[in-house]
């Protein structure tokens, strides 16, 4: 049906609304445009934070001071962490791909509260600006690490307050996005789309949204308490004011552990869309994948203590948290097995999105198993707060969520912009990126095991080899990323016109023109089958 329409339809990019020019973007309530606004902001911030990462790597190429002093270094990993976590990975997948594709995938014209959606974008922007400002005003870049551990964060003379406010506002933006998605999924599914006919990306967003709504307020209030502590001298956590520093860690991780699943679940959702399309085969174990998302979201709420194993928490809670940490790994395992089985017996087309999705599994496995290492009590004692942790979370965040993001970009780029990128360039960029990634982070596992602590500006000479290899990897990675971004930017105007359905996908976004029109669907589709039906039955999807 889409082919007949490509001639006449007006894409959302050309759509004439109430406002003209730049305002048509800044005041839009179109979920697709808001998604793109997020995308552009996130790329800019990613660039800033990534440069900080590379600078840190250069500093670490040799022991002692190389290009910056300790104060600068400490500020750098703090801002690197804050930007990466609060401004990039937590919002990235829900706010970019969730906004753009959630309504389309469930056959809706928009999210439930379009204005709220725009509002949460502005909250995001304000929060992000606060975050960046904290670098430049007065007391110097905050130097507490992204975890803001009290008492240091209550004492540091740097701009910790700005960073706290930034995280607070960003948290609210994230809550509102989550709220919007839950209501959208409940109320706006196309007729005929029962809960179990919903594609799995929306399902993963649904699980994510609940975490966003129910966990984020805790960090909100915690950060407020730290602010009150600094400004009004009300004691909560700082022992100098009578407070309890371990309680801060509890509250911080009650949010921040579930937050790591906010980061990864939508990423898992994206690759779950990609495997069936490029294998031309229904997803294997639809129900299992769906239930495992919900299980991760639920159990993930109760394992926060594994970040505090050495903080002197009680023996009973140490093994309790360790036990639950291992339980929460099982749903992840289920997903991995279902993904590889989805490919098995298919007709596999190794295009860039699939390449990224497969490397997602590879890197996620490494990140996940090292997570298990961290979750084991005895092993955690050795590797807690070492470079091993740094490698674990870069593998799982950057290698997992980051690669899922790249996979999503390659998968949906034609739909979002109506153009094709160069496959060849994408493959080359992938090769460099993947190599660089492993060269960058793998050595950190080894020096971490040997006892190289994290957040170290300086280090003992025996760790140098690992650091040098790692720094070289950063540059390889850098090259790959630049190439990938170049591929996207160059082809956004010059690429070949994308067909409506370049990958022969069957979910709803492929049934409408590329790029979609302002309201996505001329007529709301009526769903009569399960989401992943390939082959002859494709036509049945549409009424």
């Amino acid at each position, binding site marked *: 049906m889409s082919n007949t329409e490509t001639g006449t339809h007006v894409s959302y990019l050309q759509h004439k609304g109430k406002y003209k020019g730049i305002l048509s973007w800044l005041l839009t309530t179109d979920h697709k445009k808001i998604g793109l606004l997020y995308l552009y902001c996130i790329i800019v911030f990613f660039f800033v934070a990534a440069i900080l990462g590379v600078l840190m790597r250069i500093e670490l190429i040799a022991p002692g001071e190389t290009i910056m002093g300790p104060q600068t270094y400490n500020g750098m990993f703090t801002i690197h962490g804050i930007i990466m976590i609060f401004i990039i990975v937590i919002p990235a997948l829900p706010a970019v791909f969730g906004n753009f594709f959630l309504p389309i995938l469930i056959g809706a014209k928009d999210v*439930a*509260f379009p204005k709220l959606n725009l509002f949460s974008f502005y909250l995001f922007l304000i929060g992000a600006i606060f975050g960046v400002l904290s670098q430049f005003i007065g007391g110097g870049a905050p130097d507490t690490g992204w975890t803001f551990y009290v008492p240091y964060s209550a004492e540091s003379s740097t701009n910790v307050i700005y960073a706290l406010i930034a995280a607070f506002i960003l948290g609210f933006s994230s809550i509102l996005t989550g709220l919007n998605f839950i*209501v959208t999924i409940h109320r706006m599914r196309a007729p005929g789309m029962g809960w179990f006919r919903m594609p799995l990306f929306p399902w993963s967003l649904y699980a994510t949204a609940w975490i966003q709504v129910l966990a984020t307020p805790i960090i909100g209030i915690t950060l*407020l308490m730290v602010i009150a502590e600094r400004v009004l001298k009300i004691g*909560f956590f700082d022992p100098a004011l*009578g407070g309890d520093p371990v309680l801060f860690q509890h509250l911080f991780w009650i949010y921040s552990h579930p937050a790591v699943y906010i980061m990864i679940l939508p990423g898992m959702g994206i690759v779950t869309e990609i495997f069936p399309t490029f294998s031309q085969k229904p997803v294997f174990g639809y129900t299992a994948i769906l239930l495992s998302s919900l299980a991760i979201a639920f159990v993930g709420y109760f394992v926060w203590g594994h970040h505090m194993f050495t903080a002197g928490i009680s023996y009973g809670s140490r093994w309790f948290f360790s036990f639950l940490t291992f339980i929460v790994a099982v749903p992840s395992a289920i997903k991995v097995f279902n993904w590889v089985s989805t490919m098995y017996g298919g007709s596999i087309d190794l295009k860039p999105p699939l390449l990224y999705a497969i490397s997602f599994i590879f890197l996620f496995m490494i990140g996940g198993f090292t997570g298990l290492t961290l979750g084991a009590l005895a092993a955690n004692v050795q590797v807690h707060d070492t470079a091993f942790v740094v490698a674990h979370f870069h593998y799982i965040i950057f290698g997992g969520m980051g690669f899922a993001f790249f996979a999503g970009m390659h998968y949906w780029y034609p739909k979002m912009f109506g153009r094709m990128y160069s496959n060849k360039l994408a493959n080359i960029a992938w090769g460099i990126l993947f190599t660089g990634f492993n060269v960058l982070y793998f050595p950190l596992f080894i020096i971490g095991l040997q006892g190289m602590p994290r957040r170290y500006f300086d280090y003992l000479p025996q760790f140098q080899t690992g650091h040098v290899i790692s720094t070289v990897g950063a540059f390889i990675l850098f090259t790959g990323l630049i190439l990938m971004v170049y591929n996207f930017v160059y082809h956004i105007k010059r690429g070949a016109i994308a067909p409506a359905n370049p990958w022969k996908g069957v979910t709803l976004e492929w049934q409408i023109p590329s790029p979609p029109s302002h309201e996505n669907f001329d007529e709301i589709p009526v769903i009569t089958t399960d989401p992943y039906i390939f082959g002859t039955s494709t036509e049945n999807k549409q009424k």
Partner: protein
Amino acid sequence: MNMSIQENHNDHIDSETGKLGMWIFLFTELFLFGGLFLVYAVFRAKYSEDFHSAARELNAFIGTMNTVFLLVSSMTVAMAITAIQKNQKKLAMFLVSVTLLLAALFMMNKFFEWSHKFEFKLYPGSEVLKNLPRGELLFFGLYFMMTGLHALHVLIGMILLSINFIKIKAGKVNQAHYLLLENSGLYWHLVDLIWIFLFPLLYLIT
């Protein structure tokens, strides 16, 4: 594909959708206070003696009065919704203004209570407070943070209710469309709910 329809359609969210959104928002509010309750619980367990003696400093009578104000006001908003549903515009306006009045009384009480504390130099960071036993210090910290944040919510609720009053008067909130009033009502009840927990925890456990 008619644009004007699209734009309007944004303004009129159907009531089930709006209410679901509001409930989810209330959950986040609940967890926002939940963090404070958690801190309270931990400190109480650690310093229960100090908490006992510190709670005695609070005036249970003012607390009880405020509880009554909030409970009654909760009823009046609930009634205002009934009135709107029955299309009794005048009555609805009256009930909303009673609610506002009760809220104002609550805030007044709060104001006197706080200024009384300040007179005795019991404010965050003061010397008197610093010399109290550790648990009492924490108790007062929590007291100011919890009631302060709660008072902020009362204020927001008052603003919402005032908007409702104006809209009812203008006929924008009416028998057919009263989602705004319903949601503001829900919000107001939440403010009440939180107070229902705060009251015994701060004032009664002596």
